[in-house]
């Protein structure tokens, strides 16, 4: 048994290999090569079509992808914990509708006597609706242990139904004395850049800091890595779970309200089917549906990639129906490339 004691002792890691820097961390992630693919596609498109780099087209792409991108940030948090949120598209619609209706109701009342109050109240109502949806998702999933897929699938239907029920199918346009400011805040430009893009980038930076430099962010990753281990170390698992569903819903509510500014109205079918684009963006950007992997850079890059390709097909004059087919193909391709790459590194 004496030989056993000689088994260790060195601390120079002479027999423990380490991958070179370009094969670990960000450089070895799906996010990194999707970013490279994005750059390549953008270069190719700018060569093929002179319209692609025009200011108008770029602003259009930027705005379109921001709505999806903001919700992708939120859903990425949920996906990192190993969950899923299918109710984001419906939440976008209901938040937008609640915001617009509250604005209509407050128009012409005494509330308008105080500057900004009407708009603040309507924004808070819209976000409040989202918060309640997220809270319901989170409580059902964390406290009652229901499956995230089924819970949020049910919520998708409930919330979409509510959106039709309260509007009776009619679009709701924001009105009132603050309406110009509302449009400036949701659909304006700052230094030539659409505000939606600025919101997206600011939120992405905040999310990056929270995920990688706070205890909450670390617990989000720990939940996705090994939920049982997280619970054993005393992490408040239920609270973290509820928080990610609430944040996901809030991001959806916020994006929904921005879309009201863009469209000038909140129709009940707003963002129908967006949940699939949003989940696709997160997955293309490198979030792993089994949990534990994902981040804001991936969310932004994934959302941008989908929008750039859609835009490219439009510029090329290809039928819109084919765009849907292609987006599906890209999702499978991104995951496939990642699979091949991890197999190669492992062997």
């Amino acid at each position, binding site marked *: 048994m004496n030989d*056993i004691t000689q*088994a*260790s002792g060195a601390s120079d890691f002479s027999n*423990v290999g380490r991958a070179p820097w370009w094969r670990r961390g960000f450089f070895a992630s799906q996010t990194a090569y999707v970013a490279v693919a994005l750059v390549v596609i953008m270069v190719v498109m700018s060569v093929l079509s002179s319209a692609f780099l025009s200011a108008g087209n770029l602003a259009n792409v930027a705005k379109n992808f921001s709505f999806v991108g903001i919700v992708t940030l939120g859903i990425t948090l949920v996906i990192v914990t190993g969950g899923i949120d299918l109710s984001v598209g419906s939440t976008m619609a209901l938040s937008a509708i609640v915001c617009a209706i509250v604005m209509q109701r407050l128009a012409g009342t005494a509330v308008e006597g105080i500057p900004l109050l009407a708009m603040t109240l309507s924004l808070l109502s819209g976000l409040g609706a989202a918060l309640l949806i997220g809270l319901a998702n989170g409580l059902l999933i964390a406290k009652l242990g229901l499956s995230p897929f089924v819970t949020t699938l049910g919520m998708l239907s409930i919330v979409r139904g509510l959106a039709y029920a309260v509007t009776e199918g009619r679009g709701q346009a924001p009105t009132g004395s603050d309406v110009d400011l509302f449009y400036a805040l949701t659909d304006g430009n700052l230094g030539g850049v659409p505000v939606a893009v600025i919101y997206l980038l600011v939120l992405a930076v905040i999310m990056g800091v929270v995920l990688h430099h706070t*205890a909450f962010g*670390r617990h989000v990753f720990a939940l996705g890595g090994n939920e049982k*281990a997280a619970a054993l170390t005393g992490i408040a698992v239920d609270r973290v779970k509820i928080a990610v569903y609430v944040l996901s819903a809030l991001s959806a509510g916020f994006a929904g309200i921005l879309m009201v500014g863009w469209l000038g109205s909140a129709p009940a079918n707003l963002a129908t089917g967006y949940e699939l684009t949003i989940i696709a963006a997160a997955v293309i950007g490198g979030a792993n549906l089994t949990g534990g992997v994902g981040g804001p850079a991936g969310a932004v890059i994934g959302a941008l990639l989908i929008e750039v390709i859609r835009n490219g097909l439009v510029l090329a004059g290809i039928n819109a129906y084919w765009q849907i087919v292609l987006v599906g193909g890209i999702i499978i391709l991104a995951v496939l490339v990642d699979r091949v790459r991890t197999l190669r590194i492992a062997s």
Partner: protein
Amino acid sequence: MSLLVLDNIGKEFGAIRALSNVNLTIRPGEVVGLMGDNGAGKSTLVKIIAGNFPPSHGRVLFEDKEVHFAKPVDARAVGIEVVYQDLALADNLTAAANVFLGRELKRKVGPFSFLDHAAMNRRTGELFRELKSETRPDDVVRAMSGGQRQAVAIARTRLARAKLILMDEPTAAISVRQVAEVLDLIRRLRDAGIAVILISHRMPDVFSVCERVVVMRRGTKVADKPVSQSSPEEVTALITGAKEAA
């Protein structure tokens, strides 16, 4: 002084008697092997010590004071840590992140508190050096060997300044070299004055690292003697029931 005393512990689950009249004393810095066949009551005993559930009868004394654990956190608070068989590590996080999981070091910046990565990596590096383990604090656990994972799990208990560590089958399903590493880790814990209860099915491990072996059969303790006065053959006989008691 004894670190842990189990005084006449019994446990029933409904009509099933899982443990009856178990007495066990653990001294500081002692490595005790706990053996027995599946269903002999090892896990029940360990779960009582770890605070997963209370005993039906009997008393638990830790450092000569009677303790009542309602949940694992209570046991951890007095200095009892468990290294689980599946190690309970988050594969996607670094070694340092796992060691500090749930008790992260933070720095205040205004009203916000941020993780202090440098301090956590430094402290984790120190723990690995103490354990003489070739493990880097900033490596991701997914890429680690079984022995390194054990080191991470054990470093976590060291961080908590545990006085008694329960190790549940730490050498199951790892390679020969890694078994040697884990046994070495246990010796370092002993040298640091920490008591270890090693739950194992592997006779060579228990006989190479433990001072005492405790054998359970059908919910009772059938043997509790120094390994120098026993043999793998005797322990096997005790486990299977070929020999009644020793």
